[in-house]
Structure formats: C-alpha cells, structure tokens
C-alpha cells in the first residue's frame, strides 16, 4: 500500500533497507563506530521491521513500510518525511 497511490502490486516496489538507520549529523565530530553503525552494521531482526521502499514503477516516491520479516505481512506505511511513531 503506497501512501501516495493506494494499493499496488508488489512488483512495483523496490527495497531500500532499514528505515531506522540515521545518518550522523553534519559538521560534528563522528567516531569510527558511529560511521560503522550507519554504513554497515544492522540489527536485521526477525519480526516487525521499519523499512524504506521506493515505489519505483509507480510514483517513484520513497516510503516507509512496517513489515514482518518472518511472515512478510505489512502493517503500516508512511510517507518518507513522516516520523516513525
């Protein structure tokens, strides 16, 4: 379910990774560990998972999706700028 276009086929969406990962702030001293956590390290847990997806064959907007990694069930979708509750 795209928050812009409504229900669409899974084929139209492309995966973009964990949505909870935050880029370290600009112009601040960043430790190597912080960069590692941003670039490489992932929790990747079983169960509910907030993810970025792109509606690549549709409106081409990036969206946030709450999905179960064990069952593939989708619970919630948000526009990219909306904060995860």
């Amino acid at each position, binding site marked *: 379910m795209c928050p812009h276009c409504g229900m669409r086929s899974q*084929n139209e969406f492309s995966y973009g990774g964990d949505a909870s990962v935050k880029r370290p702030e600009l112009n601040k001293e960043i430790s190597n560990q912080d960069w590692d956590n941003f670039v490489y390290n992932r929790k990747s847990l079983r169960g509910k998972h907030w993810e970025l997806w792109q509606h690549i064959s549709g409106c081409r907007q990036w969206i946030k999706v709450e999905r179960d990694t064990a069952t593939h069930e989708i619970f919630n979708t948000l526009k990219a700028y909306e904060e995860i509750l």
Partner: protein
Amino acid sequence: MQKYSIFNLVKNAFSNHQNWDLAWKDPTPKKEYDVVIIGGGGHGLATAYYLAKEHNITNVAIIEKGWIGGGNVGRNTTIIRSNYMHDDNALFSEFGMDLWRKMSQDLNYNVMFSPRGIINLAHSDAQMNVYARRGNSMRLNGIDAVLLNREQVREIIPMADFSENVRFPIFGGLMQPSAGTARHDAVAWGYARQADSMGVDIIQNCEVIGFDVSSGKINGVRTSRGDIKAKKIGLCVAGSTNILAEKLNMTLPIETHLLQACVSEPVKPVLDGVVTFGAGHFYISQSDKGEMVMGGDLDGYNSYAQRGNLPTLQHVLTEGIAMMPFLSKLKMLRTWGGIMDMSMDGSPIIDKTHIKGLYLNCGWCYGGFKATPASGWTFAHTIAQDRVHELNSGYSLNRFNTGHLLDEKGLGTKTWIS
C-alpha cells in the same frame, strides 16, 4: 563405528540391512563441554569434525535448533568452485577444493563430488577482458582457468542461445574445469557421522535462548534443554546470526535475506557442468536425477521466511530462458527458499570477537555450501588455537572498520548494485 564398504554391505545384506549402526547418536546434553558449536549445518558439523581430527578436541557439542542438515546445507544448489580473483578468497577456496577432492575417502561417505566444470558466460568484449583478468589471477594462485571463445562455449553447451539478434549474445566464457557439484545432504551426514564417532555430541531440537557472559568472557549458553557451560563457543548459524547477535548485544555488518532456488522436472542428460549467465544473476546445473537445478538473485528485502515470492522467481527464470531457451518448455517441479547471512561486502566473516571465547562464522551470502570444508577447517583452527589462520585472515570482522573490504563482486545485501 561400522565402516561403509562393499564387504559390510554384503555382510549386512544377509540380515536385510536391519543391523546397521546408527549413523550418529542422540545424546542428552552434558553440563559442560570444552567447545560448544551453535548450529548443526554444514559449517558447524565440519567445524566439530576438524576440531576432533586436527586438534584432538573431542569434548565438543553441536547444538542445533531443528535437525542437522535442515537449513541451508540442504537448500543450496550444490555448486563447488574456487574461481575467485582476490587472493584471500582464491587461496581459501582452493584449499577447500583439495578437501572436497578427498572428502568421500576422508569421511568414508560418498558425497558424490563431481568435478564437471563451471562456465561463467561473457556477453561483451569488456566482460571478456574482465574474465581474462580474473582467469589470470586464478592461475597465479594455482587454480585452473580457461578462457573460452564463442565457438568453444558452443561446443560445450550447444543448447544455449547462439542465434543472431539476441539481447545478450554469448561472446565467450571463463571456465574452471575442476569446479563441480556434490550431494549436499551427504556432506552434512558424512561430517556428522565422523564427528559423532570421534566423541562429538550432536544435540538436535535444542534452541539457544541466551548466553552467559561476564566481564568480557563467555562462560556458557542457555538452551531449551538446560544450561551448558563452555569456555569456547562458536557461532555457525548462517541466517540466524542476527538473532543470536542481538542476544549478545552485538550489531554485525550482516543482514538476513531470502534466496530462492528451484528444480525442473527430470529430463535426460543435457547439461554436463554448471553454467552462469553473465548479464544477470542466474546459475544452472543438472542433477544426477536429471532435474535442472537453478537459482539467482535474492528476493532483495530482509526476511526470515524460508519461502520466497513469485516475482523474483519469474525474474530469475527470465534470465535462464534468455540464456537457454529450451528451459521455457520444462515444468517446474519444486521451488524453495533459504535465509542467507548477507554481509555488506559479499564476503564471509570467520573471526574472534570482542568477547573472549566467542568465535564468529557468518556472512556466507550466496556461497556457503562450497566453503563448507574450508570454513570448518579454518574455524576449527581459529577456535582451537584462539587465533586466526592465515587462510581466513582476510575474513576479519573489523575489516568493515578499517576499510579492508573484500569486495570480490560487490554482491552484498543490495541486489540492485550488481
């Protein structure tokens, strides 16, 4: 342990094969072991076997949540190869090839290793250049590699699409004649049987619930069948790595993804070796039963479901049909999925961790099966000696921190990069 031989086969025939020993026991977990290996897949079983054989450490338990060989070692496409360019990968894999060649004798178990060759197809001049470079690198590391032109490829796989005006014409290919396939279940069972006979306890239906860590040292593991003490614990759990890492408060450069494979109905022998499509991600071989065994890309999103979705399968098989049009006439017999521990650079991790006594073996991505013996051998060394062997020194955990990535093909978690 009874040796498997023609003599014993005949002898047991007289009692209708009712009196064979069990291949491995079903022990109750002891309170304490020298080493506990978590994960009874190919890599875990091989690790326990080499701990016993090479390092004389036999007070070892393998604990497995399900049953041995029920995960990725029973779900792969059985391809064995060492056609890598980077030294770290090439030397590690070629060491493994030697173990594969000796495995059936070594384990007294027919793993049906069949070195029938692998061809990576090239579809442009640029790709031929890349393959020439990779082939030369392989040869410098003592691995056999042959660069084939279009006609030479046609002689080996005439059923591929050599017609005019195709989107991805075949320019040639890179072949490793010594690559091949093996029977994956037999690998798990062979290692299990030998490890068991040397005193390793294989404990199935035993799930890890937590770890006992104090002042930076591992003391044991809590399981669904009671607490087990051990000064050394090895993690060999592939797609479940992230779940156990969370229990240890570690975040790793690993994501868990879904990879599908499928087989067609059995047909008469048509394809001798393994062939990969160079303009996408598709690989195919034919099993001894005649089924075409095929696989390709990840589904692309994090997943713990051991089943995939059809759009990815369709995408993968479209590539297959582009390469070998006759595949479109075959019926699909079975499809299945496994969960992969995808590392961020596409290469594995076999290393110590910041917790003393805890060792990590993960990140096998698409290539876990072929690495089974070399992974077990080097992981056993790392655990027994408490230091990394030269062969797995490139597979360190901190390479992501220091920038020494091993980006052989850049095939990590992001399918769209390839």
